[in-house]
Structure formats: C-alpha cells, structure tokens
C-alpha cells in the first residue's frame, strides 16, 4: 500500500498551516515521518534545507493523534520529563512547566496524576508537553478534537501566539471551520498527494462566484435546483450557498429566489474552506 505518493509541501515560519485531508489520506503518516516514526521508502523530510536528524527533532514539538502520556505520572513531572528529553536543563524545564501549565489553565492540577484529568485537560497537558521546550516546529495531529469551545479558544490562541513569535505550526483537523479561522494557509492531501495548497484568503477568493441566499419557507433551497449553471454548494443556517457558472446572471438567480418566496438574504460570499476541501477532493 502506498501511503505517501510524491507528497511535497513546506511549512513557513510564523504561520499556522492547516494540514487537511479525508481519513486515510496520509496526514498522520506524514506527521510521523517528520519525527522518524515512519520509515520513508523514498524522499526526505528537510528542516532549514538539511535532512531532519535527531538533534533537529529535539527542537520540534509533537502532539500525536492518539494522545500519549504516562497515566500514573504526575502532570508537572511528566511535562518536565518530556522537556528534559528535548534538551532543557532541570531548572529551565521546571520553569517552562510552571509557565505552560499556568498559561493553559491547569496549574492547579500540576500534582495530580494524568489519569485523573478530564479528556480536555489531558489534551492541555499534551500541548504543554509539546510546547515546554519552546519548539521551532510544532506538529499537532487533531489538536482540537474533543475539546469544548473554551478549550478550543485557549489552544487556538496559544497556537497563533506561537506562530507570531516565529514558530512553524502544522496542524491537522477535520473541523474545517476552526481551521479556516485559525490557519493562514492550508495543504489538502488525498491518497498521499497534495491536491490543493495555498493561503486561506487566496483560496477563498478564487474559484467561481458564490451567493448566499435565504428564502423564507425553503431552507433546503429546492427553488435553486434545476437553475441552469447554478449548483447548491451547502446549507448554512437556513440559507443555501450557490456556486454560479461564469455565464450566469445573478439577477436571474435573484428573480428565481423571489419567485419562490420572500428573500431575506442575498449576498456574494467568499469560498469557504469546507467548499475548497470538497471541491478539491471532487
């Protein structure tokens, strides 16, 4: 089975890069390859122009998809231990642990065993462990999965801050709305190949025109189906998003909508990341 097939992409410093793809596309395999956890048959992972070695990996931070912490080890000890494995001395590791546990709102659980923490708090400990050694590259596999909105906000804020201080942040997620808010650029892969890559804003502005239309009494947008050159992209809170071919006149669409009922919303919209994703994967 070929997991990665000519996959090439880069992660620029100072940006949060979304690494997207359907299940089985090769995201986790790619992330593991960065850390040498998967042997590549061909190709290489390079950091600042040179193949990644063990010394470079010690300057990376990693949060795997399947969270990995010692269940019976105390929170602070665990973060300190992992920071020391990344090369920090005991004093620096202790200080970084204190800082990050406070920053992520779990300082009061520092002396507790990891297994006694909730899923969300374990996730925060995992992130603290990935951040404690002040990494130059942060690779996070589904860091937002299973978190409540507060947790998502806290972690998102930290990731943006890390990127702003010059860190390369690469994260995978299936929560495309969150990725759209959080990431400045994305790489979408499928079957081990890159299918789309670029800035989120550029991708959003590209492609055919899009209309957001809300017609009272027709949440599913039945009125739009069958209009020539018009395709219903997705539903959005009672409205529908339409993709127009180049030769379609938007006035014709408005007239059709008004014919179906009272039009309460009619506006041109950017392409959403979820649409980019779907369109990229066909």
């Amino acid at each position, binding site marked *: 089975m070929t997991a990665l097939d000519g996959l090439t992409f880069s992660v620029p410093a100072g940006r949060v890069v979304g690494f997207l793809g359907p299940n089985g596309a090769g995201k986790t395999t790619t992330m593991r390859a960065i*850390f*040498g956890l998967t*042997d590549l048959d061909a190709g290489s992972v390079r950091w600042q122009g040179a193949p990644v070695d063990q010394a470079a*990996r010690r300057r990376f931070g990693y949060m795997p998809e399947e969270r*990995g*912490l*010692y*269940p019976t080890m105390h929170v602070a000890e665990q973060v300190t231990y992992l920071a020391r494995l*990344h090369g920090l001395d005991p004093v620096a590791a202790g200080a970084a642990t204190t800082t990050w546990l406070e920053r992520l709102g779990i300082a009061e659980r520092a002396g507790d065993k990891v297994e006694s923490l909730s899923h969300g708090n374990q996730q925060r400990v995992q992130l603290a462990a990935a951040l404690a050694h002040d990494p130059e590259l942060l690779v996070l596999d589904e860091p937002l999965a299973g978190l409540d909105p507060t947790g998502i906000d806290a972690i998102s804020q930290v990731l943006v801050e890390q990127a702003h201080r010059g860190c390369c942040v690469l994260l995978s997620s299936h929560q495309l709305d969150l990725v759209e808010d959080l990431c400045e650029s994305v790489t979408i892969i499928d079957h081990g190949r890159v299918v789309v890559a670029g800035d989120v804003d550029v991708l959003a502005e590209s492609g055919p025109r899009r209309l957001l239309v809300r017609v009272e009494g027709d949440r599913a947008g039945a009125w739009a189906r069958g209009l020539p050159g018009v395709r219903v992209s997705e539903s959005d809170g009672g409205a529908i998003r339409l993709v127009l071919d180049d030769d379609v006149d938007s006035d014709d669409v408005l007239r059709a909508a008004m014919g179906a009922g009272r039009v309460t919303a009619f506006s041109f919209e950017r392409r959403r990341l979820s649409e980019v994703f779907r369109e990229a994967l066909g």
Partner: protein
Amino acid sequence: MTLAIVVGCAAVLVALRYWRRARRSGAHHDPWRVGARSIDLHGAPLVAARELRERVRGRPFRIGTALILLAVAAAIVIPILTRGTPTPTQVGIVGPATPQLRAAIHTAAAGVGTSVHVVVEPSASAARDALERGRLDVALLGDRAVVVATLDPTGASSSTQLATALAGVLGVHAAYRAAGLSPAQIARLAGAKPITILSLQPATKPHNAGSSVIGVILVFLMLTQYNTWILLGVMEEKSSRVVEVLLATVRPIQLLAGKVFGIGLVALGQATLIVSFALVLGAIVGSNLLHGAAPIELAAALLWLVLGYGFYCWAYAAAASMAERQDQIQSVALPLSIPILIGYVFSLTVAGSGNASPFFKVLAYLPPTAPFAMPVLVGLDQVSILGFATSVVISLLCTVGVARLAAVVYRRAILRTGSKVRLRDVLRTAH
C-alpha cells in the same frame, strides 16, 4: 572442565565472526548497531532516572522488597528459633556421686550428643518416684542399674539413648574395678582419646543445602519480578501511546537502553540490599545457613542475578513491544519463561540433593539457565574459577547478541498498533 573450555572457545569464535561481520558493514549507518560508533545514548540517562524514580516510589516495589526481606529473615531466624536451647537430661544418682561416676555420666552423655544435669536422690524409691513424675529422665542405682520410666524399643528417645550409653560405660567401669584397677587408672582409661583417622581422598565439604536453595529461590523470584517490571514498563508505554511522543525525541535504542538500565539499577540495589541483609542478619543471629561457602554462594547468586537480568531484560522488552494489550503479555513472554523454569527446577533439585549431573553442569554454561545452575555448582564446589569465568564470558557475549536482536524487534514492533505483532513478521520487515 573440558566442556567449559569447548563451550567457551565456541562462544569466542562465534563472537569473533560476528564482530568481523559488523566491522565489514561498519560504513553503513545503523544507529541500532550496539557498540557501533554511531550509537548515541542521549536521553537514555533521563529515561533510566525516570524508571528508577518511578519504580522505587511505587508501592509494589516497597511492598515486594519488604516481603522478600521478611521471607529472608524468616528463612534465617526460624531454624534458629526451632533449634532452641537443648534441655539437659535429668539424671539422678542413688548412692555416692563420686567424681569418677559424674565423669562417666558426662562422657556417656557427650557420646549421644546430649547434656546432663546430675542430682543426688536420697533413695531408690525417691528416684523411682521422680522418674514417674517426670522430674528425672534417668536414675542410677549406684553403678549397679540404670532405671528409666519407659524404655523406647526403637531407641530413638534421648533418655533411652543415654540410659543405653550409661549402661555400657558403667559396665566397663565395673569391669575395671573387678580387674583391680585403681580409680586413677580407671579415670585414665575413661579419658582415652581416639587415634587419628586418615582418608586417602580429601574430605568433602559438608553440603549446606539451605543456602543453595535460598539462593536459587531468590534468583528466581527476583529475576521474575524484574522481568515483569520490564514487561509492564514497555507495555505501559505502548498501550498509553506515550511511546510515540518519546520516540519523537529519543531513538528507540535510547529509550530501550534507558529502561533496562534504570530498572536494572533498581534491581541491583534491591538484590544488594537483600543479600546484605541476609549476611548481616545471619552473622547477628549466628545462622548455620550463612556459614562455610554460603557467603560466596550468595555473592555468586547476586552476580548471576545481574547477569541473568542483563540477558533476559532485552528479550522481555522485545516481547512486550510485540503485545498490543496487557492481556497478551503472558503469551508473548511464555517462550522466555520456559528456560527460566527449566533452570529453576533443575537447580532447586540439585541444590537439595547435592548431586550435580553432567546435564546440570551443561546448564551452568548456557546463558538462559546459568543464573540458576552456576551458583548451585559454586555452592557444591563443583566448578573451578576458570569454569565460572567461562560461563560469565559466554553469558556476556550472548547478552550482546540478544540485546542487538531485541533492539531490532523493539524498534520494528513498538509503534505497530492494532493487533499483536508476530516475531516472524517483525524479522521479515525490511525496515
């Protein structure tokens, strides 16, 4: 001895061949090559320190150590308590208790391995009464008759043995007097010392089965315990997936080496504590278990415990890395426990009987069974220093080979999840 030299030479030849092959392919970068220049143990000391801290802090370690110390204390102290202080046999004399008669009584008592307390009874009836009441064990009516409450037909009771001995000694004394010998002449004859006995073969040392058995049991219990620690430690990291975080920072060999060295240090500390405790307690209470060759035997057991741990720990770590869940641990570790059980059972049998067969001597040179068999041979004084050293060298060489193989298996299996990994598949894997 010949066997030891043959096995030793074979091991050295295999090691040389292995070393040459390793040198030939030395240009190829392989961080897994133990002993290769490319090996980098960064992180291993930290891993070892964590293992040490976690083990020592854990309740199972403390309780386990306390239980073993209690068992050792019981094995040393209970025999002494049950041995107790022998109660002197009460001997009553009716008639004049002359020094010659007292000397004869003590001589007879020493002959049957007992001590006596001599009292003078006023009359034969008083002596009989004292015998019936149990105040006396044996009564002498002058030097004419020996009276006991009940004569044991098997001759096993101490009073019957003493009575029989007294009857003989006093009969001889009576014969001396009848022959007209003076008391001084009688005393001189009574004090006759046996002449020297010469043996054509050197005397064999008494076999102290107790210390050998204790040594074998301790090696078995502790080796099993340490192997279990390795199994659970590797399994914990794999099942909690923390191994993926760790291996993103350290190489598998560094993680593996740190783990086995950390647990090894705990094991060595615990074993040293237990052996020291046994030696000190034995010296304090004057235990027979620690006399003669026993301290050397225990030291040999300690050394072989370390060598046995060194040999098995890598294999157990590799086995644990192939399991997916905790309930699979026993099945992956079973093949490794078989040689341990063989070594243990044979060694226990030989330690008890004192007879080492040629097959058992072979076991003492095979690294999987040597940790049990070799200390027993040391206790039996049936191995030379050269033979002992040969077995140590064979064990060390094989440990290097096992460690290298285990490192490869560990690296290939530790990140495979979803199902139990088969050794055949691991060894076939290209990477």
